[in-house]
Each structure stands twice: as structure tokens, then as C-alpha cells.
């Protein structure tokens, strides 16, 4: 079983090499084939995963570079499995979102491998290797296949996140020099009593926080995101928001919370404040956008802000009742999955509109409901999911996050709830501009959803309904992980 995880990581890498020399027009088929295989592997992992057991499962552990404490150490728990499933789900749809060539496919596969690695590595060096490995394909995808202003956006994205990573690396080197290990589990055990003394601890905390906050991104380290998402090709935007942004949240859960519980408690009110700013200010900024893609990008920041709110609420409060911690953490995990699906779908729809119109300004469409009712209908589902309509996936996660964090940090949560209102305004305004009114001249020859497009839209939407109505099948994956984490934090 343990080799399956290795398979997840190495199959895409091998196929990426193969794709770059394969015949030009078969690239996408080969890449999709690789996605199919890794998805089957992921499903097998799910099947053999024991949802009742806490802690890591299917562990592989070998020495790698003993001199610097680097180990080849892979394993999964509920959170890892959730993210593996999400990664497997998003990539094929991202590949179908636009015309792609060999280079594009190869880079996407490399990125997928890096993500699988990030979500399964349990040793910092190995983890960091994968974490950084995802950055280069993302950079190239934006730089080579991006839209207007892609050079600047790609450079900004790369430098900003890379700078964060350097800060994180330095912090970990400091930790290693004092503690002598890069093992997540071992470090977490040391975290309770203070990983590093005094100022040194704060310095290390700040470094890791910066790296992760940029990645998520958390306000005010977010300004690279609208530029990057706007410039990136549709498929890359889908992956960036759907999966890549989750690396930051994952890092918070895996590294920062267990390693620095004391520092987080002290910085807690500030962190909660930043999360609330992410939620409210980003949704307000989304309201002011005229470009659809930029609007969706800002809402991505807003939705990840809910995750941050839940996490900080759980870690900040002195006494955390198990029920509230479990609610908040379950909500955060669900939100990770839900946002991945919904935001990717939204970028896909924006891509469809852009492809048909050749522009994506809110005012450049009108009356689409008369011309493309199917496209409008399915896109509305994604929008309603994103604004938290019950019956769709977004609501369940957000409800749990708010339930937990209201009990733990009522004031912050009460302000954050405003985000729900503003998001609704943003989406309804967009729907009004796009779908209603008289049919715009420029949109009068739009084709409705094509068969190939339905193959993307329908499955994703079905997942939204499934999670919204019967969330248990997702919750079961990480219930034990949540319980264990809540106990550690409580």
C-alpha cells in the first residue's frame, strides 16, 4: 500500500518526461491518461484508508541524506487524503479547460507530482523540495501561456512566494540547528513546550508565518494573487486556486499550529484580525472589480479567509471545548475541499465566457440567459455554491467554521459574517450584468455549452450537490484526524 503514495508522485513525473517527447497532438490524451491512473491510485488509497485510525497511515520511511536530517518519509492522514483526492479531481478538468500543447501538459503533470508530494511528505526537507518544485511549473505556465501583462505577473508571483519560502527555510534551519530534526511528528511533540526559546522562537515563527501567509494568501500578503490569477491561462488559474492555494492552508495546519502553539496564542488576536480583513476587505475589493477573472480571484482570498478564521479561532482561545474545535476544524477541512471545487469551476466558466467573447469585462456581456441558458444555469450553480447557498457544498463548510469560531471568537466572527453578505452582492451583481437585460450585440452568436464542456461542468456540479446534501462521505475521511487535532489543541 505504501508504494501507492510513491506512485502518485512519480507517475506524473515520468509521464511528464514522456509527454515532452511524445507526438504533439497526443499530449493532452497522454496527460489525461496519467491523471486517470493517479486518480485510480488515489481512489485505491481512499479504499484502503482506515478512517477510524488517528495518525499517519501507509508510512514509507528511508534515510536519505543523514548529514542534514533529510529523510524520505511519506504518509497520509485524513487531511492528506482529502487533498490528494482534491488534486486528482481538479487536474483533469484544468487540462480540458483550454487548448494545450506538450509543454503545457508536461508542466501541469510536474506540478501535480509536486502537489502530491507536498501533501504526503512528513519530513521538512522533502516537503520543502516538493513545495518549491510546484512553484516553477506555475511560474512558467503564467509566463509562457498567460494573458496580457503575464511577464510582470509571473515575476511578481515567483519572487513574492519565493521570498516567503526563503524566510521559511531559514526558520527551519534555525529549528534544525537547535532541535536536530526535520520530522514533522517529532517537532509537533516538541512544540507544546516551546520549540525555540524567546526571541529566536518568535523569529522562526515569523519566518514560517510569512512563507505560508504569502502562499495562502492572507491579508495583506495577497497582492500577487489577483495579478497572477488574472494573467494565468484558465487551466493554470483553476489549479492555482483549486489546489496550490491549499498548500498554504495545509502548511498552517501541519506546521505552524502544532509547532508554535504558544506564539500563536499570543499573536492570536492579530491573526484573527488579519483573517477578518481577508474576508471583508477582499470581498469588498471583489465588488469593485470590473474584470470577471479578477473578481473571482478576490473572492478566492475571501473564501480562504474563512479557513484562516476557523484555524486561528481554534488556536487562539485559552479553553477550547472539543465540540467547537471539532466544528471549526471540520469546517476548515471541508472548506478546503469545497473552495477547491467551486473556485476552479468559476474560473472554468470565466474561461468559457472569455473564449466566446474575447474579453472578460463585466460590462461586455448582457442578456446571456436568452442566448445560452445552459451555460448561465450551470454557472449560476457555481456562483450560488460560492455565496453559500444551502444545498450546495459551500454552505456546510462555512456553517461549521462559523459555528466553531463564533463560540470561540464571537466578535471577530460576527464581523466576518459580513463576508457572506458582500459575496452575495458581488455574485448577484455579476449575474445581473451577464445574464439579464437585453441580449448584447456582441454576444448574439455565442454557442451554448458544447458536449466537451458539459463533460467538465456536469461532474463538478454533481460533486457540489453531493457534498452539499450528503457531506458525510467527505467528513468521514478526516473525522479522526479532526478529533485528534482538536485534542492536541484543547
Amino acid at each position, binding site marked *: 500500500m505504501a508504494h501507492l503514495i510513491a506512485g502518485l508522485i512519480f507517475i506524473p513525473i515520468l509521464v511528464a518526461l514522456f509527454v515532452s517527447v511524445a507526438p504533439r497532438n497526443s499530449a493532452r490524451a497522454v496527460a489525461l491518461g496519467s491523471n486517470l491512473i493517479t486518480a485510480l491510485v488515489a481512489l485505491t488509497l481512499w479504499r484502503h484508508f482506515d478512517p477510524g485510525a488517528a495518525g499517519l497511515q501507509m508510512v514509507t520511511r528511508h534515510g536519505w541524506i543523514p548529514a542534514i536530517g533529510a529523510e524520505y518519509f511519506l504518509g497520509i492522514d485524513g487531511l492528506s487524503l482529502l487533498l490528494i483526492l482534491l488534486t486528482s479531481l481538479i487536474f483533469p478538468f484544468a487540462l480540458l479547460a483550454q487548448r494545450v500543447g506538450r509543454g503545457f501538459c508536461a508542466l501541469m503533470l510536474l506540478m501535480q507530482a509536486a502537489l502530491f508530494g507536498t501533501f504526503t511528505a512528513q519530513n521538512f526537507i522533502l516537503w520543502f523540495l516538493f513545495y518549491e518544485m510546484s512553484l516553477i511549473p506555475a511560474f512558467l505556465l503564467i509566463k509562457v501561456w498567460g494573458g496580457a501583462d503575464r511577464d510582470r505577473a509571473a515575476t511578481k508571483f515567483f519572487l513574492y512566494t519565493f521570498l516567503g519560502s526563503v524566510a521559511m527555510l531559514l526558520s527551519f534551519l534555525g529549528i534544525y540547528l537547535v532541535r536536530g530534526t526535520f520530522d514533522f511528528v517529532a517537532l509537533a511533540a516538541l512544540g507544546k513546550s516551546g520549540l525555540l526559546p524567546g526571541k529566536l522562537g518568535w523569529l522562526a515563527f515569523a519566518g514560517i508565518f510569512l512563507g505560508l501567509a504569502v502562499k495562502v494568501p492572507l491579508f495583506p500578503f495577497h497582492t500577487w494573487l489577483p495579478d497572477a490569477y488574472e494573467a494565468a491561462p484558465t487551466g493554470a488559474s483553476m489549479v492555482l486556486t483549486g489546489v496550490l492555494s491549499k498548500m498554504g492552508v495545509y502548511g498552517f495546519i501541519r506546521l505552524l499550529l502544532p509547532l508554535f502553539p504558544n506564539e500563536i496564542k499570543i499573536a492570536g488576536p492579530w491573526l484573527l484580525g488579519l483573517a477578518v480583513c481577508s474576508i471583508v476587505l477582499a470581498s469588498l475589493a471583489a*465588488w469593485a472589480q470590473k474584470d470577471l477573472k479578477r473578481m473571482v480571484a478576490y473572492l478566492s482570498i475571501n473564501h480562504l479567509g474563512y479557513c484562516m478564521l476557523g484555524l486561528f479561532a481554534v488556536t487562539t482561545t485559552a479553553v477550547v471545548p472539543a*465540540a467547537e474545535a471539532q466544528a471549526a476544524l471540520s469546517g476548515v477541512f471541508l472548506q478546503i475541499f469545497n473552495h477547491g471545487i467551486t473556485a476552479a469551476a468559476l474560473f472554468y466558466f470565466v474561461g468559457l465566457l472569455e473564449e466566446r467573447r474575447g474579453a472578460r469585462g463585466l460590462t461586455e456581456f448582457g442578456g446571456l440567459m*436568452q442566448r445560452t441558458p445552459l451555460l448561465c444555469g450551470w454557472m449560476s450553480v457555481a456562483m450560488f455554491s460560492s455565496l453559500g447557498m444551502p444545498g450546495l457544498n459551500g454552505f456546510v463548510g462555512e456553517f461549521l467554521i462559523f459555528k466553531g469560531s*463564533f463560540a470561540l471568537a464571537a466578535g471577530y*466572527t460576527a464581523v466576518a459574517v459580513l463576508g457572506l453578505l458582500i459575496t452575495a452582492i458581488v455574485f448577484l451583481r455579476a449575474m445581473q450584468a451577464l*445574464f439579464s437585460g437585453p441580449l448584447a450585440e456582441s454576444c448574439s452568436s455565442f454557442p451554448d455549452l458544447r458536449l466537451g464542456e458539459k463533460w467538465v461542468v456536469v461532474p463538478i456540479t454533481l460533486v457540489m450537490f453531493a457534498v452539499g446534501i450528503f*457531506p458525510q462521505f467527505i467528513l468521514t475521511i478526516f473525522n479522526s484526524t479532526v478529533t485528534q487535532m482538536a485534542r492536541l489543541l484543547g
Partner: protein
Amino acid sequence: MSNWIVAHLWLIPAVPLAASLVILRLTNSRRTGAAALAIVGQVLAFVLSLGAFLPTLQTPGYRTFTNFIWFTFGEQTLRLGLLLDPLTAVMLVMITLVSLCIFVFSVGYMAADKNFTRFFAYLSFFSAAMLGVVVANSLLLLFVCWELVGLASYLLIGFWMDKPSAAAAAKKAFITTRIGDIGFFVGILWLYGRSGTLLFYDGGNGALESNGLLSLGASATFIALLIFCGAVGKSGQFPLHVWLPDAMEGPTPVSALIHAATMVAAGVFLVARVYPLFSLGAIDGMTPSLTVVVWIGVITALISALIALAQADIKRILAYSTVSQLGLMMVSLGVGGVAAGIMHLLAHGFFKALLFLGSGSVIHGCHEEQDIRKMGGLRGLMPVTFLTYAIGMMALSGVPLFFAGAWTKEEILHAISLWSVSRVPHYLMLAGVVLTALYMTRQMIYVFFGRRRAAAEHAHESPPVMTLPLLVLAVCAVAFSVVLTPAWPWLHRYLSGETARFDFPRLIQPELFVALALVALGIGLGVLIYRRPGDLDPMERSLPALFRFLQNRMWLDELYDWTVLTLARDAARTSDWLDRYFWDGLVRGFGALGDSLGSVTKGFDERAINAGANDAADVARGLGRLISRRHSGQIQTYLGVVAVGMLALLLLYAWLT
């Protein structure tokens, strides 16, 4: 049979929902199929509702619930449930019956619409969501269905999406109600945190039962008020009532559905459902939260009745009348008359659906004209519509004895008169009764009496598919009185969990005469004022300033636009600006700092280090050039130099030794 239905209560909302989903899959050409499916679904739901109603008659205070686990998170479980009690049962019957009439009416009204099938899918969905609200035994499940009701209303108000005003109205409805829902949501979170459950009834552990209520303490007031925010939004109470009149942009059957059976009824129902939260710790039947409910209701009832006086759109008048009547129901709930409030809600459901469908028939007959000033004299051309409309009007105005609205209004006024806090609501609501009769008389005269104006020239009576529902609803509006009278206050006792006895002499109460006098005053004034309307509205002629104030809805929309909306839009723009120029400015500044550091090192590199190296190289090169000039290649010179050198060395040697 009934037991089976009680055990499968979920079927009642599920049947219309299923119908809606199936219709959504039909192509646009399957019109008959769509309408038939929707109507059959509604008939089934109605039959099931009757089936659920029967067992509640057997024991006073009947209540059953079934709870189930929705999902498990961590080690916690989240349970939802379904509930059947008298409140649920009467609502079920009213909603399904009124909806059914509206569905049938729509077959005629929407016959020419190209999106006919989609309309019926949305209608069914609307009804399903509302039925879900009513059967929920969990505040969370109620909220879920509540939001779906909001979604359905959004889809239906904006049904004619190519009309920009319809799209704007739909958006306004959704967002305005969501403002209230945000408060409601926080209330839910608070309640959940305090009592640990969102189930209403759970064998003693529910949030509305003693244990749950005990755990709330002082927070109950805040929770109740937050939940009331949701009701204010949905039921169009001041200050969130502004969406309701705009919602008239939807097709008329939708207006009927929103104003009678679904949507606005949800808010009143919600307050009645969670009433124990409002009345917790009541002293003399009064709590701070209930007092708020009363005053909000009073303000709403009065200002909307006044605004209705100056409107010209037939549907808008009815819309403001709905707002006003909902205010009255809220007052009733607030002063403790829960049963009276719900009775008025039910009666209102019948006669307001009747009035809206009647107005739809009028609009249809007048070729989509909605301005009452362009109608007139329709009573001869549209006899059935006129007759039924008159019944609706009398029921709404509260003409005593034969009309349902009269008895329920009387109950409400009686309850208000007993309120210990203040007499003011009582007087204001009595004035409200006069106003109601007045604006309805005005409307009747403009539409059905006098000379025929432009739009009435070629008016025609509507087809039977539209008039039949009118007749059914008219019969309901009259026959419903039977269970409302003080002689046999069956419904009141049923809702309060008691049994009613027949006592004919009690039929005539002193309130009856008060009501009679007030209604007579209203209608009389109406006839007097509007007997011969000229080109200008009589009120416009005599009180132009007041008329314009009311006609423009007290400029509340404009006020909101200038204050809240402008503020919010500015906040959005500011946030965007901060992002672009401040936060990103910092990032770019940081980048520029790195850039300039780079230039400095580059300069140092080029000017100092590199230049130094260049200088050294230059010196070496110059030296080399100097030396190379000596390498002329002439042997004589070389030999000469060698000779001179040798000579110098010899001399040196000699000097040293």
C-alpha cells in the same frame, strides 16, 4: 394512512421538489406536461397535507417529530428533524391549497410565455422550499429551506430577465432579505453555541424545551432579536420592506405566491415557531424582544398603509397592503396573540392570493396595463373578476360577519387592546383598519367603477382556467370564517392546544361594532373622496406635498441609496484602491528597494571594483605598450643595448671590488 403520512412527512416538500426537477429536464415545447406535472405534484402535496392534518385533530396539543442525523463531524453529530403540530398542519394545508389555485391560474396567465416550462419548475420549487420551512424541526433545516425560498423568489421575480427592472428587483429582493438573514445566521450560531442543539423539540432536550431554554439565560433576548432580523427581511418589515413592492416586477402569479402562501408568510411563521425564545422570562406577557416586535410591526403597518394610498399601480397597492397586514400580524405576535396572528396569516393567505390573482386577471384583461388611473368601469366587462375581487377587498378591509379577515382582525385588535405596555399600538392599529378600507375602496372605484378609461376600452373577462381559481379562493375567504368566529373559535383553540365549544351568543362581541364602525368609516370616506376621480388624484389635488411624499414611498429607497449603499460602494472602491496602491504599493516599494539596492551594488561593481580592475589592467597594458615599443626587431639596437648593459655591469663590478 394518516400514520403513514406522519411517518413520511418529508414527502410533502419532496413531491413538489421532485416535480420541479423533472420539469426542469423537459424541453420548452412540453408545456402541457410541465403544467400537469406541477399541478399533480401540488395536488399530491395537498392530499398529503390533509392526511397530516387529520391526526392533529385527535388530541389537543398534538406534537410529533422525527429527528435524524445529517452528518457527523469529529465526534459530534448534527441532527435535523421534521415536526408536525397544529401550526405546521394548518400552514401545510393553506400553502398547498393556495399554491394549487395559483398554479392553475398560471396555466392561463403564462400561456403565451416562451419559458412556460421553466416557470412551472420554479413555481414547484418555491412551494417545496416553503413546505420545507414549515415542517422543519430544526432551526438549521428551517434556515436551509428559508434560503431556498429566497433563491426561488429570486428566480421568479427575475423571471422576465430581459427586463432590466425585473433583474434589478430580483437582486434587490435577494440582497435585502439576505441582510436580515445575516442576523438570523448569527442568531443560529449563538443559539447553537449556548444550547448545543438546533432541534426545536427533542424529547425535553430541544432548544425550545425547558432544558434548552434554561441554558440560554440573558442571551435569549439577543438570540430572539437576531432571529427576528431574518423575519424582518423575509416578511418585509420596516426597515427592510423596500424589496417587497419592487418584487411586483415578477409575473403576477409569482406576486400572489410571494404575498400569500410563501416567502412573506415565512417570517411570521418563524416568529411563531420560535416563540418560546421570545417569551422566555416574560413578565406580564412582555419581554424586550417582544416589545421590539410590536413596535416594528406598528411602524410597518402604518407607513405602508399610508403609502398604499398614493400608489397608482394595481399590484403595488396590494403589495403595500401586504406589508401593512404583515405588520399587523407581527404586532399580534408581539403582544402575545400568537394564535390570532397565525389565523390572520392563514386568512390573509386566501384573500391576498385572491386579490393578486384578481389583479392578474384585470391586468390580463386590460392587455398588460397595471395603472389603475387608466382603468375604470370594468365591473360590467369582467363580472367574475369583479365579484371575487370585491369579496377579497371586503375580506381584507375586514367587513364584519361574512369574511375571514374580519374575524381575525377582531381577534388581533382584541389582543392588542390587552397589551399592558402601551395603548398607542391599539389606537394606531385602529387607524390602520380605517386606512385599509380607504385604500381598498379607492382601488375598487378606480378599477371597477366610473367611466371606462383608455386601457378598459377593449377589456375582456379571463378564461375559466383563470376565473376558477378565483372562485375557489373567494369561497375559501368566506367559508374560512366558520372556524374563526367567537361563537366557535375552533382554530384559535386548536392552535393553542385546547378544544373549542360552540357558544352562539358569543358571536356578537362589542369589538364587532367597533370594527363595523371603523370599516364603514373607511369605505364611506373612500366613496366620498374618490367618487369622481378627475385627472389628478383627489389627494394630489388637496394635499400635493403629502401625496408626493407617499407616492415616492417616503423617499426611503432614495435615503438608503444615499446612505447605506453609497457607503458600501465607497467601502468597496476604497478597498480596491488600498489594494492597488497601498498594499501593492508597499510590495512594489519593497521591490523597488531591492531594485535600487541592485543598482547600487551594480554601480559599486562597475565603478569601484570593476573600474579598479580596469585601471590595473590599463596600467599593465600601458607598461606593456611602453616595453613593446622597445621590441623594434632591430638586431643592432638589441646588440647596442646588450653592449651598454655589459659595460654597466663591468663598471659596477669594478666599483664594488
